[in-house]
């Protein structure tokens, strides 16, 4: 159904060319919003939407952008989209928007966005740029969700706010790992994911 190139554009960033664990971009927000699963999910979706739309818009106007001021134009596009998404979130999911706090606005500075705009959208057509944006956004979201899954499960004994670890465990002396609530542990978890990813994809190097 999809040609090989389209497949690579869409699915490559999910695994072999993952923006977080291979290109090591967007680490800052991956540490900041992954204490719980829900904000991480929302953040992942928000970044996916923004990066896909920004890619399409920049790709459509790429031939009219003067090369010398392209970064500013790209920033304006991204900033407009980020503002839009954060206003929508504030309107319909206020508490999550509050949990994400400043990191929602900081999507503008997320390296994945500028990287994709510069490296892909400026030189490719709109359809490919859309796929690339979706792929990279989802690749980012996957890592966020994996990290948040472990951090919330081991750090708060819950998932999406619902308690998973039964009370009987707590009664038997089980304790949540406070280390999981700290950004340092998120870095170590990302490191573990990179570790696993590298050892699974040895031949791709």
């Amino acid at each position, binding site marked *: 159904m999809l040609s090989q190139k389209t497949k690579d554009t869409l699915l490559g960033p999910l695994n072999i060319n993952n923006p977080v664990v291979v290109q090591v971009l967007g680490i800052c927000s991956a540490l900041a919003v992954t204490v719980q699963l829900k904000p991480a999910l929302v953040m992942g979706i928000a970044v996916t939407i923004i990066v896909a739309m920004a890619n399409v818009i920049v790709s459509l106007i790429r031939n009219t952008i003067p090369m010398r001021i392209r970064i500013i134009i790209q920033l304006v596009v991204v900033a407009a989209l980020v503002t839009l998404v954060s206003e929508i979130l504030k309107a319909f999911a206020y508490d999550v928007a509050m949990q994400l706090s400043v990191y929602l606005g900081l999507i503008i500075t997320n390296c994945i966005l500028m990287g994709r705009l510069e490296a892909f959208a400026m030189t490719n057509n709109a359809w490919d740029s859309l796929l690339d944006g979706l792929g990279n956004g989802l690749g980012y979201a996957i890592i966020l969700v994996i990290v948040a899954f472990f951090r919330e499960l081991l750090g708060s004994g819950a998932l999406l706010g619902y308690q998973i670890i039964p009370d009987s465990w707590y009664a038997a*002396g089980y*304790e949540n*790992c*406070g*280390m*999981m609530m*700290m950004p340092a542990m998120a870095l*170590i978890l990302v*490191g573990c994911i990179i570790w696993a990813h590298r050892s699974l994809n040895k031949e791709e190097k």
Partner: protein
Amino acid sequence: MKKLYEIWKKFGQNFEQGGKLEKLSSFYDAFDTFLFTPQTTAKRNGTHIHDGSDSKRTMILVVMALVPAMLFGMFNVGYQHLLATGQIPCCGLTCALWWKAFGFGLLAVLPYIIVAYAVGLGIEFIVAQIKHEEVAEGFLVTGFIIPLIVPINTPLWQVAIAVAFAVIFAKEVFGGTGYNIFNVALITRAFLFFAYPSSMTGDKMFIRTEGTWGWDGGHALVDGFTGATPLTQLATGTPVAQSFWDMANGLIPGSVGETCLWAILLGACLLIATGVASWKTMLATFIGGGLTAWLFNQFGATDNLVGQYPWYFHLVSGGFAFGAVFMATDPVTSARTECGKWIYGFLIGLVAVIVRVLNPGYPEGMMLAILLMNAFAPLIDWCVVQSNISKRAKRSNSASVKLEK
């Protein structure tokens, strides 16, 4: 001895290439080198070191140096238990009670030793098998130190997780023994401290008031019992009940190995006499801590109880002495240049006292101070080496200028 060795070698044939137990060769190798090697020394000519000492001997010496602190710690655990449950008569310990205290402490501490060694060595053996390397001996000391620095009421499963975390993330990912940046035993404690703060803080954690394995439990606590260590008392704003000599003698609440100054100094003597640990680092740590505490005494805010705590008290309370002697001198993670050792030790003492005085959240600063300076040790070494290079370059330059004249 020779006969024993022959039997051992014969047994070892099973482990060679193609032998029955080939896959377990690193196990055999570990015990072989542990017990019998190195047997050869350099020839007695030239400038070689004529000594069979290698890292295994070094590790064994450190473990031996830790034994007094361990034995005293065991006794103290039992003694504190008897004290808290009001079993000590006013005339002092009888012989039977003495043995009861020691036996109780032994039973209480032994599980920690077993867990630390089982988990840590287990991971080391697995990693050695995967990487087809020999099992390194570094965990020998780490496994012995961990029970000494962990509060006696920490749940064993937490210790197991912390040891696994420390061995994997502080040691194996850096390349194993000798490559670690941070002291593995301290990472274990730091992990416990940050991951399970509820079992690592408070005043009950240092004294086993219940029974051990069901033995000697069910006693009521004496009236007005408090298990607060001197530093916890300070942090909570109460004056310290213990005198200087109480703290030096060590019959006070605290982590197993850290309380008795004399036991620690005994270990320090052995370490210094055998050249395993650097006396410079130890001395510099005490000087740095003492000086900083003295400055706080003189010029610090008068309402800060910890700051007004006399400087010599700082040196004997908490884990200061234990950290200075056994943890700061870790040859892998400390500074290696001779001048760097002075700076490194001094800064450990300085940071430890600053943390104690200025951060009420952390009554004890030794752990964080050593870990912090571990990170800076390579930088200190680099600066020392660079300054030496530039000094020598300057000297040789001025010498050559003179020659030209």
